[in-house]
């Protein structure tokens, strides 16, 4: 039995680096410190995997050698006029770098999953900049946490524990005790309600005391958490204060707060379903904190307004910095989606949606982005690596992936691999292969190799290197 400490978790953008794995006979038998998603990956990653390369022949997927699969993949890419190479966020920076070399060689459109996650945030950052920090700084210093249209309880389960409301920083403490006492109160009320129902044999409605405006807890001298969302998520349950906004009205709310923070007046009764008096109190709270942080999620990028919502959020942060210290950070989803933006930018100058078909990089989201290219049926071949677009792209885009040759470099069985013509299963990066990835706050951390992969599985980088070599050979033969 071996205990490996300091393992990074290859799941979400929080990219926890304190995982301890217990290994027995090349199998992970226990994952300590991991959240539900992390443990699910470490303990089950191999349950539905493909171990040998497959090629579709006469409609059926058949096992082939690695050389044959690599040759077939290379031929598809060489024969294509406008191939799309998509995914990248669940692999290492080293593999992404090799992938970009391959994309340049075949004149592909290179896009990554930020196109359907924080792509609009990147557009905004390019427009108006971003005042941000590392998560360590926020853990120690932030006294006002705002999760806006973000639900870390489900998407980044250890974010609150490691960096915000439940973490003990040097200058700001954890608020788990106040959360527990609130939870006890809720449970007691439920018990009373159940007992009353039994005794009185009728529905007894316990009327909680309704506070006007913000709850008193947000004025205490300690770290406070506010959640702003269209639904009362589990993160909202744990927060000091929750604002339920009407769907599609975040932009109005952000701009209204900007007016109030700048000492303006609003001649309306409510904005986004929130009374103006409450918003004035919220603006006071923002201005009077020592260091505030807005963590925003896909509720802003995927809904009406898209990058304009982020413009407004960053501008609110900028306005707040005239009065106090305030920062803002996108809650990145995949563990290396930040890294893919960084490597793309190093190599091409642009973070996503990069068209290399002209022999030089061109960037025009809306035109050169994966969903648009696929919806217009422009790509005549697709290579997907470390992603599952068929499960997550709108139907209009997915059906056109199915229409043309599809290469999938993915160890798992997914809707994308179910449609693929060539499947090359790699080793799992961060478990069976090492590399580098970037946490959501742009801190690079190493991915460890903790178990040996099956003999038939190479790393993503090695597979891409082999395809690149074969592409060069094929092109040389053609010339």
């Amino acid at each position, binding site marked *: 039995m071996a205990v490996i400490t300091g393992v990074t978790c290859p799941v979400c953008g929080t990219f926890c680096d304190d995982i301890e794995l217990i290994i027995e006979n090349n199998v992970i038998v226990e994952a300590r410190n991991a959240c539900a998603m992390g443990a699910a990956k470490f303990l089950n990653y191999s349950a539905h995997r493909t171990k040998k390369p497959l090629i579709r022949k006469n409609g059926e997927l058949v096992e082939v050698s690695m050389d044959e699969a690599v040759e077939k993949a290379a031929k598809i890419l060489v024969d294509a006029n406008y191939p799309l190479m998509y995914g990248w966020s669940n692999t290492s920076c080293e593999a992404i770098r090799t992938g970009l070399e391959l994309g340049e060689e075949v004149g592909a459109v290179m896009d990554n999953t930020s196109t359907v996650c924080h792509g609009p945030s990147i557009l905004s950052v390019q427009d108006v900049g971003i005042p941000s920090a590392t998560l360590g700084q926020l853990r120690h210093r932030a006294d006002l946490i705002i999760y806006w249209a973000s639900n870390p309880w489900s998407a980044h389960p250890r974010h609150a524990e490691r960096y915000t409301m439940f973490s003990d920083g040097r200058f700001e403490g954890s608020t788990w005790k106040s959360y527990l006492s609130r939870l006890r109160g809720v449970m007691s009320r439920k018990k009373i309600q159940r007992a009353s129902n039994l005794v009185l044999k009728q529905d007894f409605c316990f009327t909680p005391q309704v506070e006007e405006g913000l709850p008193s807890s947000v004025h205490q001298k300690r770290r406070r958490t506010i959640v702003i969302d269209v639904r009362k998520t589990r993160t909202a349950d744990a927060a000091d204060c929750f604002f339920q906004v009407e769907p599609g009205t975040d932009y109005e709310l952000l701009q209204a707060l900007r007016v109030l923070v700048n000492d303006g007046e609003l001649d309306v009764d409510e904005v986004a379903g929130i009374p103006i008096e409450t918003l004035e109190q919220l603006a006071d709270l923002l201005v009077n904190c020592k260091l505030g942080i807005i963590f925003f999620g896909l509720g802003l990028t995927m809904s009406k307004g898209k990058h304009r919502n982020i413009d407004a959020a960053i501008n609110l942060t900028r306005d707040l910095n005239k009065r106090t210290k305030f920062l803002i950070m996108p809650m990145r989803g995949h563990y290396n989606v930040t890294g893919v933006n960084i490597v793309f930018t190093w190599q091409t100058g642009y973070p996503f949606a990069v068209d290399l078909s002209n022999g030089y990089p061109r960037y025009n989201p809306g035109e050169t*982005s994966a969903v648009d290219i696929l919806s217009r049926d422009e790509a005549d071949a697709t290579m997907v690596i470390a992603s599952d677009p068929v499960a997550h792209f709108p139907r209009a885009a*997915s059906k056109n992936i199915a229409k043309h040759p599809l290469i999938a470099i993915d160890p798992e069985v997914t809707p994308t691999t179910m449609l693929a013509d060539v499947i090359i299963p790699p080793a799992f990066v961060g478990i069976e292969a090492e590399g580098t990835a970037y946490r959501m706050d742009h801190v690079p951390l190493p991915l460890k190799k903790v178990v040996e992969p099956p003999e038939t599985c190479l790393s993503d980088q090695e597979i891409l290197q082999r395809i690149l070599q074969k592409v060069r050979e094929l092109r040389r033969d053609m010339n």
Partner: protein
Amino acid sequence: MPKLDVLVLTGRTIEQGKGKEMGKLSKVYLDDVVQCNIDPQDMKTLKLKQNTNVKVTTNFGSVVLKAVKSPRAPHPKMIFISYGPWASMISDPRTNGTGMPSLKGIPAEIEPAPNERVLSLQELVNQLKMEA
């Protein structure tokens, strides 16, 4: 059959997150991504019972899902579906020049579908192949 105009919200749940790491063929994943979380009052309006089938139709397609009472209510006239192949069948591909499709706040119509069944993952993939 009663019908209701709603907004569709897609998103992450911890079960979906766990399930995708266990594998897209795992029961945890498949059970979660076919659920349509509906406000209890809307369930009453539509005369729906827990785990009965509903059809959700947008301008971009329709899909049959399993109706469940939302644990995160109230959110009247707003349904929640976890990210996954079923939600993608009805999502809006228009990106408004940003590259990002509209995956939250899609106008839709919801109705009980007691005589229709929820497609399996293989059937859904086959449907995409047929449409290609």
